[in-house]
């Protein structure tokens, strides 16, 4: 992407004549700024979405006063955080206290460089993309421990230690589940992993249920691996039910207890950046990334019809069961179906890979993780370690061997 961007810049007539290397550096800076802007806007939107989702799950309304339906609430909150006083405790280690949030934020942003947003939009299409993301996300631990220790506060230190132990433990099952996918794809390049999931096939190749050829439907072992990856990733980004490092009821806010204003906002930003990163990674590795779930136009039309039937059934079920009309799913799917049958362009568009599909997948995964957060209670520390070492680890190893056996049985690898 950097190359093509630099070439595009050089092809512009008004652009000053520069060396290719300088233009490349400029493109790199622009892409970095673009990623940062994406992460900032994304965090603002996701905080609003999270507050609304949590409110609906708890039969509340959520933010309603600032802007229509409270849509400007997080913008107002962000402005407030920017204007707040930046407090550094007297006994805190002021250098590390200042540096800590930036290390966390930088590691969160830098990991986005390898994420393929669409076939053409990938900041750095590197051959070791997946490995790179896994490695960069391990830097977060250093930032967390740094800020936790620098706060000079026992809760912060406890939070930092818990977080470090948690991230280090959960990196292993997460790495092993990703390894199973890498073994299937035979590549660490994100775009190659996505391309390997193109087309459609039966569920697990033999159950006659036509589904997109995503790795999560490829074989039973990877189906389990998908859920295990979600559990492990939730733990790695310190979200509920694995939010021990920042558990409000025990440690106030863990490693960010002493932070306020803009530095606290950086923590929040990196938290949501990591959240989105995990959703992107899951979408790429298990759900076919920017690939459309529909292989052909006919498949798209048929699938939409099936979905329409399902929506009708849902509406009827709700009507008989609760005596009310649930109109939105029916309306959305009905309109898409009509559009797909009437306008060939729409049908072609939904079968093409691109930003739309990865956005849909990422949004649904984000909703899944929010759903987790507002449903499950927090784990105890010993339970956390139990889940990692005694449940996820053995199953991940078993899965790895199972995937290898599956590949041997289906003839994907030969000895």
């Amino acid at each position, binding site marked *: 992407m950097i190359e093509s961007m630099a070439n595009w810049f050089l092809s512009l007539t008004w652009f000053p004549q520069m*060396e290719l*290397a*300088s233009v*490349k*550096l400029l493109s790199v800076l622009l892409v970095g700024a673009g990623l940062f802007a994406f992460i900032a806007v994304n965090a603002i939107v996701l905080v609003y979405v999270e507050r609304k989702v949590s409110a609906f799950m708890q039969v509340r309304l959520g933010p309603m006063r600032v802007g229509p339906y409270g849509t400007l609430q997080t913008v107002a909150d962000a402005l407030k955080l920017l204007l707040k006083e930046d407090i550094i405790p007297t006994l805190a*280690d002021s*250098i*590390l206290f200042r*540096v800590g949030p930036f*290390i966390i934020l930088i590691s969160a942003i830098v990991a986005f460089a390898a994420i393929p947003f669409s076939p053409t939009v990938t900041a750095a299409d*590197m*051959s*070791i993309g997946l*490995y*790179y993301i*896994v*490695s*960069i996300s*391990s*830097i977060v*631990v*250093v930032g967390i*421990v*740094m800020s936790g*220790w620098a706060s000079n506060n026992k809760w912060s*230190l406890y939070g930092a*230690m818990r977080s*470090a132990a948690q991230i*280090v433990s959960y*990196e292993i099952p997460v790495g092993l589940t990703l390894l199973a996918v890498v073994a299937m794809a035979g590549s*660490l390049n994100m775009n190659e992993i996505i391309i390997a999931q193109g087309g459609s096939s039966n569920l697990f190749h033999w159950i006659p249920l036509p589904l997109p050829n995503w790795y999560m439907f490829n074989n039973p072992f990877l189906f389990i691996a998908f859920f295990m990856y979600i559990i492990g990733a939730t733990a790695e980004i310190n979200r509920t039910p694995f939010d021990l490092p920042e558990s409000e009821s025990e440690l106030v806010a863990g490693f960010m207890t002493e932070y306020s204003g803009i530095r606290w906002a950086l923590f929040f930003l990196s938290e949501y950046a990591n959240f989105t990163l995990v959703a992107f990674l899951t979408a790429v590795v298990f759900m076919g990334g920017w690939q459309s779930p529909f292989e052909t136009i006919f498949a798209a039309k048929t699938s939409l019809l099936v979905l329409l039937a399902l929506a009708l059934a849902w509406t009827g079920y709700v009507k008989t069961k609760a005596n009310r009309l649930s109109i939105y799913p029916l309306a959305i799917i009905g309109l898409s179906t009509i559009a797909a049958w009437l306008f060939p362009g729409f049908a072609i568009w939904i079968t093409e890979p691109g930003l739309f599909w990865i956005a849909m997948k990422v949004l649904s995964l984000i909703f899944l993780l929010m759903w987790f957060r507002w449903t499950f209670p927090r784990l105890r520390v010993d339970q956390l370690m139990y889940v990692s070492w005694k449940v996820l680890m053995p199953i991940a190893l078993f899965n790895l061997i199972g995937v290898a056996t599956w590949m041997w049985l289906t003839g994907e690898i030969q000895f």
Partner: protein
Amino acid sequence: MADLIFWLFWGLTVASASIVAFSKNLIYAVFSLLGTFIGVAAMYIFLNADFVAVTQIVIYVGGILVLLIFGIMLTNRITQTVISESSFQKMFGLTVVFAVLIMVLIPVLGHTWTNGEPMAFQETIHQIGTLLFTDYILLFEVASILLLGALIGAATLARKER
């Protein structure tokens, strides 16, 4: 322009390494190791060794650095720890240092360096994988057995006697 980035990373590596060496505060020393490791990883990338660079970050930052931090933080009174700065046997130390410096400098200066074309970047991971599982399989297995032994040993030591 690539030179500028190279020198930036060179500066990062050397500066953080000197903090590690000279800082009286143990915590600063450990945390500035992060800069050193990242700088060294960047050096690997300039050598077209992307896999090694990323492995450097995973192993050293994700593993060893966190282990060091744990070790230091579980020690009592981290802040009061005084690193003994009284240097003794200065002459002997200086002699050794200069001897090593000369030993390094002789081949560096004696070699005739050529300014070739920079190599085009090519991925290394397939080659590494193939070599690990064909030519170097014995070493690979020996290393894994060594690590397994270390793991079991650590578990045995940490286990509570009943």
